[in-house]
């Protein structure tokens, strides 16, 4: 290396950060020490300034680069998280490659964590010495530019996914909207009314569904699932399995004769939440988009016994195709939005609430279907026998939420949902309604007012988490009823409330396969199973993997307005990316030296970003530079030492350690210091 022949000219800049640093560290002493003792390392100038990050401070650096011909810059200030970009840009402005600038932290790692001023000053010297030794080995790097494919993949056709898809499509960019079920619409399509305004859910959702179905820029892929994702921001390649509907969509008119004639009835566990039936060939609901039915091959008589074909016989357009195969599609997209939504908490897990054992205990989704006029009971609120109207109804809040035995988090929508139920029950049956709550949480526009409305309507509110629901009676008045046992915590009385119907306001849970989804897309999910956003406050839309965004309940429980907002926000972020046409990526990357790679593939599975691919023919691994985030996991994991991280080479790390230990400073000076 020519490092020894031609010495680098290094400038050291020590920041006071007001009193943040200077209050503990003697900045002047550190600066003069660096100028004198690190001369042999190549330090030609060392300065201190009140605020290095200010424009005046930056000009100071730029002036020295130009006048003294500095080839390396070390700034001792705050953490690289905060101002690395600032100083890199300053160097770039003066014509120095930005990656030849090193920011060492003497604030977060020194002045903020120490009180001993003398020791902290000595530590600052060591940190700077380490930075100076390291910066010598820095290389000039150029950011990677990759083009951005204008198409977007939206996974999940609920309200969040539909909103995101429509926003992007309206802006003129192509969208692939993938949905696992036969129709888009998601959970919102199952609901009757939406809180707090009580407008009909289907009335506001179906126009959006139709728009998404008809939009020239949206390719709707229902009854489909994403199986594989390769590539990186700007150019992902997604493999999608389009499951066989067993009919030719091009010929189908959605006339409905097939499901009218189909002799096989099946309990609909998905859309009707087990409350109603569908046929073996079916559309989940009349307003389904697309309008084509699917044949449920598990239950269809033809697939079980080999005869029947009633649908085929009666189909006027002859579109039924029993031999149809799954289709595998590969699509190229620049960005991905995940909006896969939520699953309902399985209320059977709380045995003392009796769901599944006591017939008149209902889940929240069951009640939604029951109160929906297009639902299995035609909108009548009735007991499980299908005809009796309840006279007393108990609504249990926080079922499976706010409970360390099940889910610790608050599902955030259940309070409002329960208030909505209470209103609907009262409106439809005139029954006495009891709400059993721990805390009423109504923190959004118009929500608290809705709560007040319910109070005025005369709904009973009992503050206490329900202990148990049972059919074991003690008094004649409890005969034939369900007894809800609870402590009214506001008066301290243990109550036994006899009711005809109990509704469990169950919490939201991540999709049962959310961990597999996270792995598929190379992002992370929390221990609960919700996908993790880039920043909980300032970036709840992006993920740690560039080009992959999240919207709706996949990130955490939220109501419809918040899901729509997040869907639109994700779309805005994607459109911003598409407009840029290409994207500059940090050049801090890992590279594998092919001749040293033994092909053991240890790094392949270590990589959290799926950035390492294996060449079967040459038996070596290779890092995809656009996917690599420079985390260094593979570098540490490689048993052959074949991987180096740009900016974190062995030379850089070891020389920094030498510098920190002051091994680069002549002995007597080090002792004196």
């Amino acid at each position, binding site marked *: 290396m020519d490092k020894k022949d031609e010495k680098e000219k290094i400038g050291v800049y020590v920041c006071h950060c007001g009193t943040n640093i200077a209050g503990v560290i003697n900045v002047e002493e550190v600066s003069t020490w660096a100028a004198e003792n690190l001369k042999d390392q190549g330090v030609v100038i060392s300065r201190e300034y009140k605020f290095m990050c200010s424009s005046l401070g930056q000009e100071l650096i730029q002036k020295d680069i130009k006048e003294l011909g500095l080839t390396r810059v070390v700034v001792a200030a705050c953490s690289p998280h905060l101002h690395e970009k600032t100083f890199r840009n300053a160097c770039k402005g003066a014509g120095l490659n930005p990656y030849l600038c090193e920011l060492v932290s003497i604030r977060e790692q020194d002045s903020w964590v120490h009180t001993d001023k003398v020791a902290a000053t000595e530590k600052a010297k060591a940190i700077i010495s380490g930075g100076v030794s390291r910066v010598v080995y820095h290389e000039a790097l150029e950011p990677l530019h990759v083009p951005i494919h204008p198409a977007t993949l939206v996974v999940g056709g609920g309200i969040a996914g539909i909103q995101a898809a429509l926003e992007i499509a309206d802006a003129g960019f192509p969208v692939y909207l993938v949905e696992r079920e036969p129709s888009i619409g998601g959970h919102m399509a199952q609901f009757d009314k939406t809180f707090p305004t009580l407008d009909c859910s289907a009335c506001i959702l179906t126009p959006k569904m139709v728009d998404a179905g008809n939009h020239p820029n949206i390719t709707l892929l229902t009854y489909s699932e994403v199986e594989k994702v390769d590539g990186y921001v700007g150019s992902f390649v997604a493999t999608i399995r389009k499951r066989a509907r067993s009919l030719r969509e091009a010929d189908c008119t959605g006339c409905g004769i097939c499901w009218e004639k189909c002799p096989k009835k099946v309990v609909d566990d998905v859309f009707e939440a087990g409350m109603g039936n569908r046929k073996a060939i079916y559309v989940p609901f009349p307003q389904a988009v697309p309008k084509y039915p699917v044949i449920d091959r598990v239950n269809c008589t033809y697939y079980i016994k080999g005869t029947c074909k009633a649908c085929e016989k009666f189909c006027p357009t002859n579109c039924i195709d029993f031999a149809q195969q799954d289709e595998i599609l590969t699509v190229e997209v620049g960005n991905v939005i995940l909006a896969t939504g939520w699953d309902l908490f399985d209320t059977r897990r709380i045995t003392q609430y009796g769901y599944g054992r006591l017939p008149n205990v209902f889940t929240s989704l069951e009640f939604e279907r029951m109160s929906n006029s297009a639902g299995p009971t035609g909108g009548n609120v009735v007991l499980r026998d299908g005809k009796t109207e309840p006279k007393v109804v108990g609504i249990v809040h926080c079922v499976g939420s706010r409970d*360390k*035995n099940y889910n610790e988090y608050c599902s955030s929508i259940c309070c409002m949902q329960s208030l909505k139920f209470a209103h609907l029950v009262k409106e439809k049956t005139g029954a006495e309604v009891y709400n059993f709550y721990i805390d009423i949480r109504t923190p959004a526009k118009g929500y608290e007012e809705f709560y007040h409305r319910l109070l005025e309507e005369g709904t009973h509110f009992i503050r*206490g988490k329900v202990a148990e629901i049972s059919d074991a009676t003690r008094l004649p008045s409890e005969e034939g009823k369900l007894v809800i046992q*609870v*402590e009214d*915590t506001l008066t*301290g009385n243990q109550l036994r409330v006899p009711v005809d119907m109990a509704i469990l306001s169950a919490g939201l849970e991540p999709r049962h396969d959310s961990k597999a989804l996270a792995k598929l897309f190379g992002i992370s999910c929390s221990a609960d199973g919700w996908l993790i956003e880039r920043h909980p406050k300032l970036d709840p839309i992006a993920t740690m993997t560039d080009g992959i965004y999240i919207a709706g309940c996949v990130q955490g429980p939220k109501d419809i307005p918040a899901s729509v907002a997040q869907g639109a926000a994700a779309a805005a972020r994607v459109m911003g990316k598409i407009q840029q046409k290409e994207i500059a990526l940090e050049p801090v990357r890992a590279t594998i030296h092919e001749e040293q790679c033994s092909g053991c593939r240890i790094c392949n599975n270590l990589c959290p970003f799926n950035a390492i691919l294996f060449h079967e023919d040459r038996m070596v691994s290779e890092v995809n530079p656009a996917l690599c985030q420079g985390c260094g996991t593979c570098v540490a994991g490689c048993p052959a030492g074949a991987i180096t991280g740009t900016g974190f080479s062995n030379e850089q790390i070891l020389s920094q350690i030498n510098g920190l230990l002051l091994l680069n400073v002549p002995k007597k000076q080090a002792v004196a210091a």
Partner: protein
Amino acid sequence: MTDTITFGQEISNLLHAAEGEPLKTCIQCGTCSGTCPVAGYMDNSPRQIIALINLGKKEQVLESNTFWYCASCYHCTVRCPQEINITELMYALKRYSIWKNRYKEGLIGPTFSEAFVKMIVRGGRSFEPVLATSYIFSFNTREFVQEIQGATELLLKGRLPLLPARIKRLENFRRMIGRIIPMGGLE
């Protein structure tokens, strides 16, 4: 640094297998009191006892009959959404109450508990005829007669031993017990 610890800390220190102050995490949901089969006999429900401890109302807690009525069914502990071991808390309050010799007048619980523990430490086994006579005189006449009737029936059916059972190596057992509970005024 500080010598004074709060009543809540004092009680928390008596909870086995608990760290910090678990009672502070109580969200006052009432699951424990709603669940409790004997809550109807308590003057303060288990939830209220936790609230009183968190408030530092030591007098009110010790004057309460709640923990003496606890049937140790552990139902509250199983259901508590904050995973507080409420039954353990009831035991802790019993121990504290006996230790400080402060409890509500007219309760059978403290007398019985003390007699029971003393008997175990002396003989290693429970012996009902002696145990019963140690507290039976604090009963009123009607209850006294009821107890005697019950005992007679048990005796006739052979469910009540006439001679006390003793265990082998009683000294070792006592040493063991001495390690577990500081015996204080017991012996």
